[in-house]
């Protein structure tokens, strides 16, 4: 407990990290930036479905979204993209821009996520334009601020679809935003909606495509590996809302199918302040593995409390990556994670994507838990779909999106699995090391989503 590596919370920006002199991305930079990610993510996805009850309350504050008024400033300035000729696509794009609505939480509790999402979106749009655009047309992003609030998200989505008349909307941070906007965009707006987040699964609305990992993609490789390498008794712990409950229900299934035993399964209320009893129950259960879907802020107390209480087994979960050490300090060491992108797992070309984005916008967090890789591939999957369809019309692009692929996905080739509305992804199992980096233990290969069957 002596070595608390948490960043200074009162620095409103994690940018006290010096920009790396070599133009690359130092481990430490990645970590400190990553911290915000996971923090925000924990909050974000934590509140997801659990915040359904917030909706009515939020309903009154319809004017909350500065929405698309920031859009004009944030457009990708398609004509100004430098070096267009150097890229594979050849000549500079021309003609009417293809408008991509970028719906994320620029303000509010998840603003750390939103800032990175916008940076990644801008970077991807610029890169596509430099490579010749889509069908020879430039890509222009239009930012809508969901303000970490379902009602504000709905307003922003309406503005994007009705006033800005975007061709596609990519976005949403928390599931409650997805629930609030998907009808507006995909059904009434008849516009393609891409949901770029690892989440609880089950999103099968027409015109909606998910590009993050579904639960089975993380758990199918992870749980059997844990059974084989770390022990056979599991204690399942999480916050009490849809994401942990869905994930842990599936973990239980896999553990029991694999011959292991679940010795306990406990949830703490989302508004809890003290998880002392959960910590004691986890330890008393004598489990080899605590499978944790605890979310911020209580996850810090829970994971540190496990180690302080003398738990010597393995802590594994779906919400860990390079940010774990920054959040949990020494307690993170040895945590087992499973993601579609780990900085150390991917090849030099993939790492360069992260390095380039961070060189351009130094505060950007390029880690799995902030959805950055999913945002990036969403742009390229959309590009592939439009090019296959030869048009931006929703029905044709949707049909093409169903089997779109992106060979240069950071982390390894990704492709939509036809009929599932979800994306087949490369998956890596990793272990958090004492220095905060994640060591890749297993390259699990490409895992298909089991969704919308």
């Amino acid at each position, binding site marked *: *407990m*002596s070595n*608390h590596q*948490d*960043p*200074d*919370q*009162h*620095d*409103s*920006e*994690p940018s006290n990290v010096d920009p790396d002199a070599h133009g690359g991305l130092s481990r430490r930079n990645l970590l400190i930036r990553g*911290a*915000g990610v996971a*923090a*925000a993510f924990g*909050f974000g996805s934590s509140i997801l479905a659990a915040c359904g009850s917030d909706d009515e309350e939020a309903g009154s504050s319809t004017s909350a979204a500065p929405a698309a008024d920031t859009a004009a400033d944030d457009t990708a300035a398609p004509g100004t993209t430098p070096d267009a000729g150097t890229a594979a696509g050849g000549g500079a794009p021309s003609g009417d821009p293809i408008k991509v609505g970028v719906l994320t939480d620029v303000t509010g*509790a998840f603003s*750390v996520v939103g800032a990175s999402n916008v940076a990644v979106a801008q970077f991807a749009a610029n890169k596509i334009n430099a490579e010749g655009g889509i069908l020879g047309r430039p890509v222009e992003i239009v930012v809508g601020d969901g303000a970490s609030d379902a009602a504000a998200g709905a307003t922003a989505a309406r503005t994007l679809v009705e006033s800005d008349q975007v061709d596609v909307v990519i976005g949403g941070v928390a599931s409650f935003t997805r629930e609030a906007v998907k009808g507006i965009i995909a059904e009434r707006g008849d516009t393609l909606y891409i949901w770029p987040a690892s989440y609880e699964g089950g999103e099968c609305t027409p015109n909606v495509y998910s590009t993050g990992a579904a639960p089975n993609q993380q758990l199918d490789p992870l749980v059997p590996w844990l059974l084989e390498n770390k022990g056979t008794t599991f204690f399942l712990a999480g916050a*009490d809302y849809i994401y942990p409950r869905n994930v842990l229900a599936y973990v239980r299934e896999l553990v029991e199918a694999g011959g292991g035993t679940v010795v306990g399964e*406990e*949830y*703490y*209320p989302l*508004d*809890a*302040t*003290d998880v*002392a*009893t*959960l910590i*004691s*129950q986890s*330890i*008393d259960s004598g489990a080899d593995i605590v499978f944790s879907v605890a979310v*911020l*802020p209580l996850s*810090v*107390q829970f994971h*540190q*409390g496990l180690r*302080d*209480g*003398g738990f010597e087994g393995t802590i594994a979960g779906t919400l860990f990556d390079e940010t774990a050490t920054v*959040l949990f*300090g020494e307690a993170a060491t040895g945590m087992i994670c499973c993601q579609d992108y780990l900085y150390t797992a991917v090849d030099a070309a993939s790492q360069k994507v992260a390095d380039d984005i961070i060189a351009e916008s130094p505060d950007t967090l390029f880690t799995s838990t902030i959805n950055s890789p999913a945002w990036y591939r969403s742009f390229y999957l959309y590009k592939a779909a439009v090019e296959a369809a030869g048009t931006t019309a929703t029905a044709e692009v949707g049909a093409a999106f169903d089997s779109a692929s992106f060979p240069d996905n950071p982390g390894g080739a990704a492709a939509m699995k036809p009929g599932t509305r979800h994306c087949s992804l490369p998956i890596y199992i990793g272990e958090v090391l004492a220095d905060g980096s994640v060591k890749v233990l297993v390259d699990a290969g490409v895992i298909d989503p089991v969704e919308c069957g």
Partner: protein
Amino acid sequence: MESEIRLVFDTLSLTSILVLLVLGMGVIVSMMGVFNLAHGEFVLLGAGCALLSDRWLDSAVWGMVLAPIVVGLIGVVLERTVVRRFYGRQEASLLATFAIGLIIRELVRSRMTIQVATVPPPIESTFTFLGAQLTWWRLILIVATPILLTVCLVVLRKTSLGLTIRATLDNPNLAESTGISTSRTYSLTFGFGAALAGLAGALIVPVLNFFPDLGVRFVIRSFISVLLGGVGSFAGPVVGATATGLPTGLLPNWLSGVWPEVIVICAAIVVVRFRRNGLLGGSR
């Protein structure tokens, strides 16, 4: 054996934390009749003192010393500028204190990129007792709570300040006519309650971590403790906090962790229905 030790330790620690947090609210409610919904944010500000002192001075101890002073002063200022305008209008004062709390909380939130921060306790590490590994700082909270409780009792029962406060509570007009400045007394009482909240916040933050909702999550529980124990006496809220804290520590051993709170709140409603003035029913 280990698990029994942990059970007792957790229960004591959960209960002491709740008692610690209720103290300040109890003082303000009982002595002034004001339900201060900004109480949680006073706790948060106290926790913030510990956090900043850890970051700037490398130890949370100074923050713990300064928290009651800083937050107490903030309390006095708020009483003079806002809260006193709403005396005698309970609903309005609820709304006013709620607004104050909201402003403080959202200011803190907007200052934090990462929405949680750890504050290392001044005494780190753990000890082992009959096989169970326990944390020192929780033990210190268990010990500190009764001490603080005693200090409060002494202040209210044995000092002239306490006498003034009680006189003002009992009969403001009579107190005023004997030369006591009731408005000054209200400021001091509110400040004292705020100081207790600040101290509680600084003491608990090494265990619970710092996050913007830290305080507000305790407000409803504190509120219920006060209602359960009974308004109008100092002991009431403390008894109420103990009565709500013990089951939340013990019940998770037999029930899923999401139930104890529900059960405690239901039980509190039943108790308050049949003993309108709480467990210590109106004994001033």
